[in-house]
């Protein structure tokens, strides 16, 4: 393990093809900076990404990475983390990936307290397919798939993860990389499942929710809520509250199973069936 790691050590040299101004640049920098500061070596870190613009993040990452199918980052991360608990595993995807097609996996990763940091780049739009309505698009949002305005209640990912038993819930903004990097550090250090929702603007297809939109609304919370009512009221008062909003401790021993058998494998198998 090297003490002199920098964010650059977590780049593979491939130039991102995101649009200029894309929020995902900030998220990539936040992940790279966090891992460097934690002195986690690139070969021991795995970035799991989904599909969409945000999914391309794994192609710019300097550690091991796996660009999965649409919505499946968390099951893939489960397979990696459960079989190689010594690795640092980060999942990253968009709001369509994580709150639309993959939302079922979010619930189950939270309830099994999977020790993975899940970063969702939330831009409230399907950018890669050119601007359709997403699960976090606000009511009335006009797009090619909701020309009369979005009729579907936007999902509340933080409350959903919380009610599913998530043990770490944070929210950040790709326009504030320093804060985001710190949030990701805390997420990685957390022993258990951490969800970090990141407002990551799409400057091409969701101009209404650009950097200024978020800057005007974000308020910072400097400590997690201590009680359930406090957590719920934090988000009801301002859905754009940033910081670590919830953290508690639950057992993760199942991810550190110890071998207790000394016999050779054939004798072990025989004893199972005789």
């Amino acid at each position, binding site marked *: 393990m090297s003490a002199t790691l920098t964010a650059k050590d977590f780049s593979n040299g491939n130039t991102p093809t995101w649009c200029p101004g894309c929020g995902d640049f900030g998220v990539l920098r936040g992940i790279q900076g966090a891992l460097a500061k934690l002195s986690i070596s690139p070969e021991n*870190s795995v970035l799991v990404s989904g599909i969409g613009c945000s999914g391309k993040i794994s192609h710019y990452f300097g*550690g091991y990475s796996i*660009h*999965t199918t649409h919505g499946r980052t968390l*099951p893939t991360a489960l397979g990696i983390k459960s079989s190689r608990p010594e*690795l640092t595993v980060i999942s990253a995807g968009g709001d369509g990936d994580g709150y639309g097609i993959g939302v*079922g*996996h979010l619930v189950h990763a939270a309830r099994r307290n999977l020790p993975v940091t899940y970063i969702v780049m939330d831009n409230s739009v399907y950018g890669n397919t050119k601007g359709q309505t997403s699960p976090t698009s606000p009511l009335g949002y006009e797009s090619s798939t909701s020309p009369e305005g979005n009729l579907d209640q936007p999902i509340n990912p933080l409350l959903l993860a919380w009610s599913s038993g998530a043990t770490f819930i944070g929210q950040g903004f790709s326009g504030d990389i320093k804060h985001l990097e710190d949030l990701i550090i805390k997420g990685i250090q957390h022993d258990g499942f951490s969800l970090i929702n990141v407002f990551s603007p799409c400057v091409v297809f969701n101009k209404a929710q650009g950097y200024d939109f978020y800057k005007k609304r974000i308020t910072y919370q400097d400590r997690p809520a201590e009680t359930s009512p406090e957590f719920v009221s934090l988000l009801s008062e301002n859905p754009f509250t940033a910081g670590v909003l919830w953290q508690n401790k639950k057992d993760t021993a199942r991810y550190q199973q110890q071998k207790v058998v000394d016999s050779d494998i054939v004798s*072990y198998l025989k004893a199972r*069936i005789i």
Partner: protein
Amino acid sequence: MKSIALFGLTGQGVETAGEILSKVIESLGYTHRNWRDFSTIIRGGNTSFEIYIADKFETESPPRMEEIDLAIVWTDEGVDRYLSRLKDKSMIFGPNNVKSIPSEHQENPPKLGFNVWSLGIICGHLGIPYQQVLKEVEMKFKKEKNTDLFEAGYQLGLTVLSGEPLIDLGIENVTISGNDALCLGGIAADVRYYYGYPITPASEILENFSKWLPPLGGGTFQVEDEIAAIHAALGCSYAGKRTFVATSGPGLALMTEGLGYAAATEIPLVLVDNQRGGPSTGMPTKTEQSDLLHLMNAGHGEFARILLTPTSVLDCIVTIQEALNLSEYYQCPVIIALDLDLALRKISIPWEKVESAIRSVEIDRGPTILESQIEGTYKRFEAVGSSPPLRTVPGVKGGAYVASGDEHDERGLMEPDFKKVRSTLHIRRLNKANSIRYNRPFSTIGDKDAPITIIGTGAMGELIENFVKDNPSVYQGLLIRQLAPLPKEELTVALKNSKRIVVAEYNAKAQIRTILKPGLENKEVHSLLRFDGEHFTDKEFNEEIFTILNEVTSNLTN
């Protein structure tokens, strides 16, 4: 050879009685095979258990048999099912109100207790020492009432004591199913993690592993669906650990997403499909071999795959180990297709046969780099001459790469020059498993020069073997173990002297025959098809084959 049937309602513990019986016979060292007919109705449906016990010192398990020596039934429906199959029509037992049962074979056991009473009759008939079974009964059923019921049944069974009572042979036998066999082979091949979703007839694998893996430092996860299962398996495999996924038709439909992804990313993957009656939810508790054409082509786009079909319970132990080796060498999906009967059938055979199957395959991780450091620029998807690319796993310094389902270049990066990579990388991926290192694409029984060959796989294996055994100079049996890539040349050689061929399979559209067609050129080929969910008995199968062959003969003489 002895064959016994027990027929009752689901919820009556027929299966439990069968398990105890099987365990006791196992402890005496007799090779045997169990057959279960179970309903999707958890309480109150019909269920039956049949056991076929081989002669002493026989080590090959018998096939499903038609002729029954002793039947115990709970209802008239059981009489309808078994009377015609009894060698001696009086050898049927049951409650007072059931038809066609000799009065001296009738008693009045309670509905919940019928199983213990029946077990008594069977053990009495077989001459199994009373105390030996009683111990098992008392362990399983705590109430005293059960001991009385067992005693009553045992006394009744003694009235028809078999001519050759079972004795202790002093052979160490074990009882395993096809699913058990996959778990044994899997663990021997270093599987320590397993991700699954319950489905008939593959749940046993998840259940076994949930008990067997934690002491080895591994574990299982019952995930939310089969999409999660296959992606978790892919994550595990990407991370350098061995695993496999197992499911049946409906789960396979969901796993198809991951199948193409495995192909695109060249992450080793072994997928087991325990086929049941389809389409859709179909017949969850009935056997079929009807996913094969789907398995040959499942997934959008085009990619290489290997499709293996074990032919017996023991072969499952071997095949899963071979499949894990093949998947790591070729870095493509390796699919193993069983059918419900093979997955659930339980056979009891000498442990030494199981042990030799477990030991028959060495772990070979192929071009996987687990530890050493990579020098220079590593290109994950660049072939090494005509050999597959080197594959690193997390932890290997200098070996980091991105595995992507998006088309990519040799480093794995998306948005490459498509024209270039489609004519190089994609072509390599398409053709990498055109021929594979696999020594036994089929096993052969009987005379290699026989004029007639019977072909089949999976559950059909035991029936073909049994059929050929009786007349080895006239018939050859080919039990297919590999459907893709098609072992065409080997087939042509094996069928050189066969003019007539019967392909026996459990589906309506002759899927195995369709797949094997290029290897069956210039032959007179006939199909034996069954798709009502039932597995043939030996007699049914033999008669069907003879009918087909006689028709052929009469056609020829006409």
